[in-house]
């Protein structure tokens, strides 16, 4: 399925498997139900990803996180924002590898996804066919800055105000 | 009452213009802002055609919220929705006779 990130379309190195028997040699993505089996049977150096529902308790994923190269969170519809909170919680648990949102998202959500800690979005063909990549990249840059602190994109407006306050004068602030 | 999945009869197809929001009625050949112009489906086959047209016009980005509305005929033979909600939709706000279709705004007065 089409995969994109903040730079555009990209190839998906992960092969989607329906069970935990890791027959393939390359990177594989398996359902949550078989993650234990997959972790046990993976070959040395083989990248492993797991796909989870958006209502998974992050604590359940915690013991596996260190062994995973990708977590893909399913968005049943673009209006279901649970995946954003799950992504935040997984990042808080220290997961630093690839985080994917999978589902019928829309271009305007790329910025939200990145801010909540996702790296990439996997779309179905219909959504990707209607929304050219230029729309995603344009939408991701719609706002120079947001108001919320602690989200993983550009400096928030509150940080920018603080920088402005702490600068000796406006000229200096502009120069940095 | 129409049965489930059965269009109401007789009925007309009502929708809002996508860009303007104005209430429109499906005619033999297109859309009209006047309910008197509406094509009335008296039989199931015509109603099914109107339903198909509702889906097609929605896909063509012409209208939104297109659906069939059951009607009766007034003394002059013009279609009048049987439900008060749809009657208000074809007329305008009931407390403001100066607004909406009931005001019969002259075309020159419109924007």
């Amino acid at each position, binding site marked *: 399925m089409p995969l994109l990130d903040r730079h555009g379309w990209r190839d998906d190195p992960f092969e989607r498997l329906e069970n935990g028997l890791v027959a393939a040699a390359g990177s594989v993505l398996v359902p949550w139900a078989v993650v234990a089996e997959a972790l046990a049977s993976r070959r040395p150096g083989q990248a492993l990803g797991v796909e989870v529902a958006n209502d998974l308790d992050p604590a359940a994923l915690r013991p596996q996180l260190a062994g995973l190269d990708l977590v893909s969170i399913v968005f049943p519809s673009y209006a279901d924002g649970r995946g*954003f909170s799950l992504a935040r919680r997984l990042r808080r648990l220290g997961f630093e590898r690839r985080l994917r949102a999978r589902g019928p998202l829309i271009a305007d959500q790329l910025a939200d996804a990145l801010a909540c800690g996702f790296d990439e979005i996997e779309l179905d063909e219909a959504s990707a066919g209607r929304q050219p990549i230029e729309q995603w990249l344009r939408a991701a840059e719609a706002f120079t800055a947001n108001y919320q602190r602690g989200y993983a994109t550009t400096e928030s407006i509150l940080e920018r105000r603080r920088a402005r306050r702490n600068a000796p004068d406006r000229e200096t602030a502009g120069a940095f | 009452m129409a049965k489930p999945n059965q269009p109401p009869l007789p009925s007309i197809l009502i929708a809002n213009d996508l860009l303007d929001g104005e209430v429109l009625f499906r005619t033999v050949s297109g859309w009209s802002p006047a309910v008197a112009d509406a094509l009335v489906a008296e039989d199931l086959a015509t109603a099914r055609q109107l339903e198909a047209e509702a889906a097609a016009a929605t896909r063509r980005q012409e209208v939104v919220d297109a659906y069939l509305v059951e009607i009766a005929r007034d003394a002059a033979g013009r279609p009048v929705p049987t439900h008060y909600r749809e009657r208000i939709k074809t007329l305008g706000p009931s407390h403001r006779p100066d607004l909406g279709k009931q005001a019969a705004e002259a075309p020159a007065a419109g924007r």
Partner: protein
Amino acid sequence: MYRYDEFDERFVRERVAQFRDQVARRLDGSLTEEEFKPLRLRNGVYLQLHAYMLRIAVPYGTLSGRQLRQLALIAERYDRGYGHFTTRQNIQFNWPKLRDVPAILDLLADVEMHCIQTSGNCIRNVTADHFAGVAADEVEDPRPTAELIRQWSTNHPEFCYLPRKFKVAVTGAEEDRAAIGVHDVGLRLLRHPETGALGYRVLVGGGLGRTPIVGKVVREFLPKAELLAYLEAVMRVYNAEGRRDNKYKARVKILVHELGEEEFARRVEAEFAQLDGPSINADPEEVARIAAYFAPPAYESLPARSARLEAAKATNPALAGFVTTNVFPHRVPGYAAVTVSLKLIGGAPGDATAEQMRAVADLAERYSFDELRVSHHQNLVLPHVRQDDLPAVFAALAAAGLATANVGLVTDIIACPGLDYCALATARSIPIAQSVAERFRDPVRQQEIGPLNIKISGCINACGHHHVGHIGILGLEKNGIENYQITLGGDASEKTALGERLGPGIAAEEVPEAIERLVEVYLAARGAGESFIDTTRRIGLEPFKAAFQSFARKEVQDAAA
């Protein structure tokens, strides 16, 4: 009032550009209607019966004269010459064209306004006490808090795809004029009983609609500086765990109810404990920066009583009556807050024409430090008027047809737009309000009846707050006809209570007479100086039920005969 800095200004301009782009993508087929609908809703664009509707945010109900003039201009240029002030302190226009919305947003941005999150499953426009900064019973002006929340909730990357809408109200006063008990989150500014530090009592899970519930206290005292981190915790618990299987059970009130308030509070506290407050909360300088915009205006030193006003009242009974009903005491001697009633007998509750908006803007600029409020009672407020100027303000209001002296009385009726405009409505509201107001139009009789809040909703979603009306009216459909249920005993104040149904639904034309019967019960039973709601609390529902049901039964028999 708050003024945009360069960051706010750029943000709002970028939001307009984003919406323009979203409309273009809808029109070129990139977005389906199903995809576009939540986007347009999040920018206040609804599809109503006759046309689109645009809901404009009036953050915590505060406006300047310039802003109100711009709304008048939009009403004339892009609408039908009027606007409707809502129970959430916003204004909505009923006839805009979708193609014109981006241009309207440009005009709004020119005066530091927007339509952001006035609808959709996100954190909505934050409301506050309309007498903020005026009332003597206030610990602190709630508007800096509301502005901080407005900014924090705007375009939140995590919380714009919630299970359902989310409404926040803030008050800093003892008397609750912001109805915080019926909001998803209600905040009450208070001082810690021991330390004297400022903080918030936090209520979660109030709401009206299909399942009316009064909010529960989940935090008795939250230090002021920790507000945003605590709200983030509340929102994350709700976003992750709120029900999405049934839209009628998706509000946070249902989650609080199903988990129980202790368990809900425990989950919020567990989340809150994991958050790094200093990296989330606004720093004290930012809080102070916002608060500075709400510093009191340059009041004059005046005597507490205005001799000029007293003299004018003595010769002008209409002025005296107006002062009794529409003027609220001000914390500063010699000043008063004036409520401009948008409940003209025969008008639509909350509607104002462009001319009326300009007339009020003039008065705000001339007499009220260029400041206005929109109340959730769908009226306007001139918050800081010198008592000496009240005769002149009254005369100007009278000339503009805006001197209706009925604030808080039986004809000051809250009503949603109902089926005359709204695609969700099941029955009309405005004609009901008009017929009840017509019945009680005599100003002497209104004074005699005293404070009585009637609130009308045209469907179960309860935009007209009927559950918390002293008398509530809910319009439904029954056998293809409009039918109205009457409730009694609701209260939106700090004594929050939900009204109870008196009996079977009645027809539209029977509503004024039914209200009349209830008023008769009250007048016969009341003690000296006892208000309608106090009497209902004292004598209970039964006498009202009996009178109502004997009336309703008779109507049914007459109809059958």
